[in-house]
């Protein structure tokens, strides 16, 4: 009887006639490439996982579904890699999918999270997961992939960066603070007031924390790029964007920790020692709708996602570091966060 129900379930299960990989053995997974997290539409459950392979110069779509026979979930938001495991944070499903990095087979699903956004590894045993709608950051025990505890920030959280024995956690929606947590005892030790809605953060080669505050959607504030000294928890420098209509996103940095990139009417590039914000984009947006950005830490290749109209399959645009377009290929619906998987033998062409 149970089998019958299972068969019936499979019969009615949502059929997704997506392209089957033309590399059935999945050999592309052993090479270097970029994982693309396709968010899909809120509540439609059409988020997915893609991979751009440097070996074949192709994008392989719907990998999680094809390999695990179930959808990835509702609005996967980000991914982070530690050793041979990848952690995919699925926002509106309230879960993290832990998968084997080389086979993409599911290892475990961590359920019970409230609107999780990003995961950052404190060490080999512990990770922090931020939350858009709860006041707490979840602590994940990486040994058994379970929620071990929470840190009450009393505010929602978005980006998280670990530096030495501190975690810097931004309070994005409606907020203007970066909270500082002691990773030894998981206690909040400080807060730093920054610009409105700190959306993304990176650490440069000098251990300075760069915080991109996009000003909020109501456009009542100017967007800011703030530089924080991670030793003193104080702002050292602030770049204010020229008008309130400017809404920069997705602050990234190259592998050397010297060159910043972000989205603002195209891709902007800026040296960490620059005295002003860049006046012109390195890559203009033209007919695309740039949605997310990633920089290869070894080659500084630039990968940009194009969400098109937020309903059809989006695209991944691959540029060399000088802004030369290499390829545009179809990914899933609303391709967003990207995460590099680079083997030791990865070479800069």
């Amino acid at each position, binding site marked *: 009887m149970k089998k019958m129900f299972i068969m019936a379930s499979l019969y009615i299960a949502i059929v997704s006639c997506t392209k089957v990989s033309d590399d059935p053995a999945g050999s592309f997974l052993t090479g270097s490439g970029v994982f693309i997290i396709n968010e899909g539409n809120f509540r439609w459950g059409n988020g997915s996982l893609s991979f751009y392979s440097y070996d074949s110069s192709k994008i392989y779509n719907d990998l999680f579904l094809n390999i695990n026979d179930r959808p990835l979930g509702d609005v996967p938001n980000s991914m982070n890699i530690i050793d041979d495991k990848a952690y995919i944070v699925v926002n509106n*499903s309230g879960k993290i999918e832990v998968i084997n990095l080389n086979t993409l087979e599911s290892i475990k699903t961590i359920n019970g999270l409230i609107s999780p956004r990003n995961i950052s590894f404190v060490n080999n045993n512990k990770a922090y997961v931020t939350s858009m709608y709860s006041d707490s950051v979840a602590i994940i025990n990486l040994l058994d992939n379970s929620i071990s505890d929470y840190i009450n920030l009393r505010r929602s959280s978005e980006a998280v960066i670990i530096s030495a024995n501190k975690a810097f956690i931004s309070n994005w929606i409606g907020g203007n603070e970066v909270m500082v947590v002691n990773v030894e005892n998981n206690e909040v030790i400080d807060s730093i007031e920054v610009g409105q809605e700190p959306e993304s953060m990176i650490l440069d080669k000098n251990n300075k924390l760069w915080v991109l505050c996009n000003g909020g959607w109501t456009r009542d504030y100017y967007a800011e790029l703030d530089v924080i000294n991670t030793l003193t928890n104080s702002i050292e420098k602030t770049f204010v964007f020229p008008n309130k209509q400017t809404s920069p996103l997705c602050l990234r940095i190259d592998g050397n920790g010297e060159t910043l990139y972000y989205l603002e009417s195209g891709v902007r590039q800026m040296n960490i020692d620059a005295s002003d914000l860049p006046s012109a984009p390195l890559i203009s947006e033209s007919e695309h709708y740039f949605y997310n950005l990633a920089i290869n830490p070894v080659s500084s290749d630039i990968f940009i996602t194009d969400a098109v109209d937020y309903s059809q399959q989006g695209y991944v645009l691959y540029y060399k570091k000088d802004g030369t377009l290499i390829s545009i290929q179809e990914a899933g619906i609303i391709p967003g966060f990207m995460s590099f998987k680079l083997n030791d033998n990865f070479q800069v062409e």
Partner: protein
Amino acid sequence: MPLHGQLSSYSDTINIKEVVISRKRLNSYTAGFKKVTIDSSVLLNHNHGTLADLLEDNSTIFIKSYGLGGTALPSFRGTGSNHTQIAWNDININHPMLGQSDLSLIPVGFIDDIDIYYGGASMGLNSGGIGGIINLKTKPVWKKETLISVNPGIGSYGKYSGLVKVKSGNNHFQSVTKAFLQSSENDFSYLNSDVSSEPVWEKRLNSQVRQRGFIQELYFRKTKKILSARLWYQSAYRNLPSSMLSQQINSGEKQFDESLRTMLNYNLDRGRFDYFLTGSWMLNRLNYTNQLASIDSRNLSEALVIKTGLGSRLGESITLKVILNEEVNVIKSNNYKQNETRNNASITASAERNGNNRVSAMILIREIFDNNVLLIPDFSAGFQFRLIDAKEYFLKANISRNSKIPTMNDLFWLPGGNSELLNEYAFIYELSYDMKQKISPGFDVHYNLSVFRNTIKDMIQWHPGEYSYWTSDNIQNVNSTGLESSLSVDYRLNKISSEFIAGYSYTKATTVSSYNNNDIHIGKQLMYVPENQVNASLRMNNHNLYFSWVSNLVGRRYITVDNSGYLPHYFLNNITSGFKFNLRGNSLDINFTVNNLFGVNYQTIAYYPLPGRSYSIKILYIISK
């Protein structure tokens, strides 16, 4: 699908002879157009259900449902839910902010008859129903009698419902009072194969509904005049369940809907001309809270509608009509920058040649003033040819231009509302063959075949804007083309009566152009519009016993714009059986229903499960004095 059968389970106990439908003449707009009535006998079987359930079983209007208790929206001939208008005694009751009605909130027990106006036929009633209009009617029975009906029910998933009706009056005065209560846990089990490698049985959580409603109707009749007053209050508290893919702790999503609708109507029929005046004031409250996301959305809308019309007959078959409609909307919402109002007026003139002629025709022209802006006039023209004298074989053709003004949310929602929006408009073409044949006394056949084409221009769509939020714009042109075919057979012999109805519809709805020239979904079937739908029902009545079997097959619905993903077809079967007694002039009826007889696991919205087999039992006791 025609549902004109006269099979009534209650014909022994309630003698419905003298029925007056208000403004019958002014709205007898049928020459060349398609209108279908779902009569009271069909409604009776669904009187504890919602309008969504009823239409799902008895029409080819596709219902997109978020599950038991969840929002249920209609898709009519491939159009969106805001292209289907719900009217109450000819007055538009769509929510002015959303431009649509949640059919899960409308209890069938409050309605006496339903007229479905397909495509251009809706022009005779109101503007904006590009897909069509579903007109919910309440009406008196002019008879000196008092009827009290008590109708409790109990069903699966913690459903308790009760409907009480009191009808009293004489040939000059009628009072109708109806009250409805429903409480349902909706905690059905479903097999979830989308969250782990092995399918797991899960129970639907946070899906409770508490609903109550009340209607009071008063009718006065004197010679050729009818005056009526109606009041309809209802409210619904709902917990909103999350998708099957969400494994997070209950988000605390809730919705409270409350509406108060009032209507005054005066109707005068002097033979050569008839006249009506209707005034309606409606209040809708919609509060949505999401504890997790700290959303507390409070929305209050008021609508004042005044509608008046004059019809004049020239000779035996020609009717001229003029109808004026004035509607004022006032919205108070914490999602708008400020309180917003809208004043919308229209004047409609029509001429119709009808009757028993071989050739009937109708022409209508409408001018709309939207906040003092004059829109391009709409029109409608129908032609009907009787193939054989005195026989009910008709060829019908019609063409219409129908405008739909933007919803208040399209205009004023913060962020993204666009006050510069143009109205949408559509050209609607329809050709049909309609045949009614009496094979023998007690044996009637009705067949209809229609083909239609809608071309919707300047369709409003929300799309990503410049500042990380979506905005509304006139950016799409959409075509829907299709075919509808239906057959109904009535057979009566002595105390046995039976009715068989079957319908099929094919709908091809595609985007033909959009703001994005490289749009890959141009030419693809619109999401959640099934190409194929079939339904069939058999209803039988033998003295005190009755039985019905309703089947509904819905084809594949795409869930991605490029048609790469879809929900597979489903086939549902519902059966109802009951028996009734006469108890010294009163009647007792007990019926038992099995919905989804074969326990099909299905969804109409992806990842929002619907229940398997469920049962309900209802008792109807009618005291007649």
